[in-house]
């Protein structure tokens, strides 16, 4: 059996904060299912192999982000792989790089890799903290929990679907979090995003190799506890029933009743894909009442203050 090939792109440039965690989680979740794994770390002075199954991209500061993008465009390996249908998972700065353009140093627009129909720029303030977001129910992943640390604002074009709706935190900046198209998926959850979200890790593995053998339950006991602890820490009202959310395949938890004030996007409902286009052609969430079309993502503004994307 040919081993599953995980390709970690440019850890020398794009690894600021625990990005290795995603590689380790995918490797472990495959191996404990009896799937052999090969991990390939590709530095920025090496060629990106075209025959990988899952490509991973981490976070980075402004300058490394721009340098890495330039090199990947010149290299062409990632594009060839994505065209072939390989899975690409990118976090934070890596997520922005996937887009048509992003804000480089001093927020000057930089041409992105163009693998996702998104455009990113710099927001007015830095988003730092725990993030909770409900993943598109079509992906069968449930709720995301993680940490974000970025100043990016990302506008989604018609060619992508939002990955999730933000419950706590900032994400793309318009009530959505991350985006995906085909098997290319990006998120603002930074660093080891898959650690607290094993379902997302399994989605990537499923995309790469099809139906997965069962995962030994005792091997994810700790991850479940950690996940429940982190969700309970930021969603106090769910602390008693937080673990229920773990089950796969549940409809998105739109819980009535009190919510924390920070939970601004609480009333957003998922809508069917074909009808959710705005006049500008952007796909976006419909809103029940308060989140009318007037609430738009903040457009990037030129700023002097530098930012780290991770």
């Amino acid at each position: 059996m040919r081993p599953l090939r995980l390709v970690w792109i440019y850890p020398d440039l794009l690894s600021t904060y625990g990005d290795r965690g995603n590689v380790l989680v995918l490797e472990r979740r495959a191996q404990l299912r009896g799937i052999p794994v090969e991990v390939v770390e590709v530095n920025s002075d090496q060629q990106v192999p075209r025959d990988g199954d899952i490509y991973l991209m981490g976070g980075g500061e402004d300058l490394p982000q721009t340098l890495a993008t330039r090199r990947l465009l010149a290299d062409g390996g990632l594009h060839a792989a994505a065209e072939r249908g390989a899975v690409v998972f990118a976090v934070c700065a890596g997520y922005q790089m996937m887009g048509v353009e992003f804000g480089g140093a001093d927020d000057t627009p930089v041409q992105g890799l163009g693998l996702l129909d998104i455009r990113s720029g710099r927001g007015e303030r830095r988003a730092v903290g725990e993030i909770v977001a409900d993943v598109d129910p079509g992906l069968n992943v449930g709720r995301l929990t993680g940490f974000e640390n970025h100043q990016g604002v990302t506008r989604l074009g018609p060619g992508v679907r939002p990955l999730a709706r933000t419950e706590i935190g900032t994400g793309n900046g318009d009530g959505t979090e991350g985006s995906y198209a085909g098997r290319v998926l990006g998120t603002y959850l930074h660093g080891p995003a898959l650690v607290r979200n094993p379902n997302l890790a399994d989605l990537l593995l499923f995309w790469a190799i099809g139906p997965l053998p069962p995962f030994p339950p005792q091997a994810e006991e700790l991850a479940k506890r950690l996940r429940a602890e982190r969700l309970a820490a930021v969603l106090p009202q769910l602390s008693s029933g937080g673990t229920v959310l773990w089950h796969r395949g549940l409809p998105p938890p739109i819980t009535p009743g009190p919510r924390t004030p920070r939970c601004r996007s609480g009333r957003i409902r998922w809508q069917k894909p074909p009808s959710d286009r705005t006049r500008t052609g952007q796909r976006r969430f419909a809103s029940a009442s308060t989140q009318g079309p007037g609430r738009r993502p903040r457009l990037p503004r030129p700023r002097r203050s530098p930012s780290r994307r991770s």
Partner: protein
Amino acid sequence: MDANTHRTRLPIRAKLASTVGDAAASVSRLAGKGDGSVIGGRIGLRLEPDLLSLLAVGRQVVLVTGTNGKTTTTRLITAALAPLGGQIASNIYGANMDAGAVSALSRTPDARIAVLETDEKYIPSMVQATSPRVVTLLNLSRDQMDRAAEIWLLARRWREALAAAPECRVVANADDPLVAWAAGASRQVTWVAAGQAWREDSWCCPNCGAHLQRDGDDWSCRECGGRRPPVSWMLYGDEVIDPSGRSTPLELALPGRANRANAVVALAVAEAFGVRLGQALREVRGVTSVAGRYTQVSRRGVDIRLLLAKNPAGWLEALDVVAPAPAPVLLAVNAQGPDGRDTSWLWDVDFRRLRGRTVLVGGERRLDLAVRLEADEVQFRLVSTIEEAVDAVRAGSANLEVLANYTAFQQYRTALGRVQ
């Protein structure tokens, strides 16, 4: 300058600010709220915004910065300068921003030399305010990224600040490419080969971004021609090689490679002040613990040693210090404000070397650490207090190595009776 002249020389407003700040610090200390240096300094600065530069006038200031080893190196430099005689001002309690520096200078008006641990972000303002004689740059790596600045950006700020201070001598680690680039703009640099165990933040050239060529401690950039500068001091195993090429055993009381590197840096700083190697080294060897770190305490028959590490590079060095198997290890992690609220950094630490050992896991974020260890196939047991850890090991071992990040360390230190 004779005794007690510094405060009397101050302008009246600064004198008042200094006195009131000291009084506030004393009150805070007496009330049991720590050592009071931050509150005292803050009050002083509120009354006289230029207090720091006024207090620094006429003194020879050494600033010590870097991601790791600041507190220890500050302590070692203070020891190494002791042969000069006289009092030395120092923020020995680790209050390393402007308020802490104000407090340290304010309460030692007679000290003509000041050795100040300085937060990485505060280097530009501290260089400007204190006109230091020496700035010491130890290392630069990822640290508490939810509140600290980017390290490439920090290096740029250091570089600009030092380029604007031509009178200042820089003592810098040539083995850390980011540090070398930051120091490279200054006119007088003493380069020290202090080594670099953590390399994950310096695979690329800070000048042009190209992938660096690395061979042992040597590094160079093919694109822009940047390279490791020639050094005059060197850490070589357990020995220091001084600028004359002579090698001397360090024989420190403090454990670990990182502390040997810190000691060599301290010796280089002492040389800049005219202290001879032999004299300085004698004092440096006498340092046995720094603010509770490396201290040994006994608890119900178990000797506990406390080690502090706050970020991946620090943990890498600390795991090197931990006594070899079979000594049990307690790892503890919190994620309070001072620790950084994000535990992602745990995934940058390679824990595989702990496989097969007795490992206990504590701290407020022990589940994060547990999942991390599980991924590295390290067996462990969760404990909620240090007493529980002692209970877990006392049947089979006479000692326990404790490695904790900042607030977890402080909690254990308090639980063990505020050990020094």
